[in-house]
């Protein structure tokens, strides 16, 4: 039985929980939890006999550039009672020095690699993570490439079929492209 936000507020004193709706058809409302009580809420959801959400299926980082925060989304399921998904969301500001969120690897071991991926691609530091290193990019890499404001290095010497974004980059880099593309006028 998926707990309602009132039950959670009662169970975890001081937790601020807000319901964020999904698309009307998907009907998977998410519970936005504040950073301080995230671990307490997670532990409650896992150990509470009525919900027993022992399977953390998916940890995702989402960069809301316009709204100015990065959101981490946890999808939880219960293997014992076969229900879910319960969606937990937590937000952190986009600036690199303040962008940290408590890690849930101590609650669910499965979050370890996925949180490292969110750190690698979005720059969200997970406090209390046993081994927070880059997992997908090489260790000397310094940027966080999945952020919306990331600009990849220019490598556009030979572009026979350039379009919009690539066309702009090729012109800037002076690459070889069809002569008609160089004078392409946006309709």
């Amino acid at each position, binding site marked *: 039985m998926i707990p309602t936000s009132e039950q959670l507020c009662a169970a975890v004193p001081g937790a601020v929980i807000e319901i964020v709706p999904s698309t009307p058809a998907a009907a998977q409302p998410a519970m936005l939890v504040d950073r301080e009580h995230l671990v307490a809420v997670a532990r409650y959801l896992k150990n509470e006999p009525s919900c027993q959400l022992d399977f953390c299926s998916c940890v995702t980082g989402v960069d809301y550039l316009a709204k100015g925060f990065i959101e981490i989304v946890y999808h939880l399921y219960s293997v014992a009672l076969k229900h879910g998904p319960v969606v937990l969301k937590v937000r952190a500001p986009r600036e690199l020095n303040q962008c940290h969120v408590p890690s849930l690897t101590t609650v669910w071991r499965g979050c370890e690699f996925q949180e490292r991926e969110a750190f690698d691609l979005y720059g969200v530091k997970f406090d209390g993570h046993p081994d927070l290193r880059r997992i997908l990019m090489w260790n000397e890499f310094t940027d966080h490439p999945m952020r919306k404001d990331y600009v990849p290095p220019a490598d556009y010497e030979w572009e*026979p*079929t*350039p379009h919009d974004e690539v066309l702009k980059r090729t012109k800037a880099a002076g690459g070889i492209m069809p002569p008609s593309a160089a004078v392409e006028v946006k309709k």
Partner: protein
Amino acid sequence: MNYPGKGLVEGLAVTARNFVGSYFYKDRLTTVQYPEERIQTPENSRTFPFLVFDESPDKPRCTACKICEVECPPKCIYIVMDRDDKGKPLQRPKAFDIDISVCMQCQICVEVCPFESIKMDNDYEKSKYGRFNDLVQRLPDLLKSNDYYRQIKPVKAAEVDAKLKAEAEAKAAKKAAAVAAAAAKAAATPPAGSAT
């Protein structure tokens, strides 16, 4: 009965049966001697796109509407519309480049093309030494006749031809109706004119 090494002997029996069987049963011998003997690829098989023309190469079905260029996921199509000297766009591509070193053979361009002008070929022997201009197929390399299309994909070509013929008739019928309506209107107005 169970003797040590029974599993090994059974496994060897399977391989032995296959080895001996390959001399007698045709389905156990699966090797296709490639250059001499080729697999008949099914009709739906697709490798790289090509442009279809009906009568002659300089009148392709393509009208350079650039829908395929926009919808192509890896963006490997580049089209320039042909314009006559006064700058009026002719419904024809001047340049139609497909960079087959980027094309992912997903045939989304075939699905979204409203004029049935780009189709998928099934010729896979395209390995080249050079990289730059050898692997960019341009308008002359892409243009292939409708008979070629009817030859490699008979069922699909028949459907496409039927659809195009039906559209042509519908358009002709509509034009004829429009002409008839215009004629009827013209016939109706003179009597009114003479009456005054």
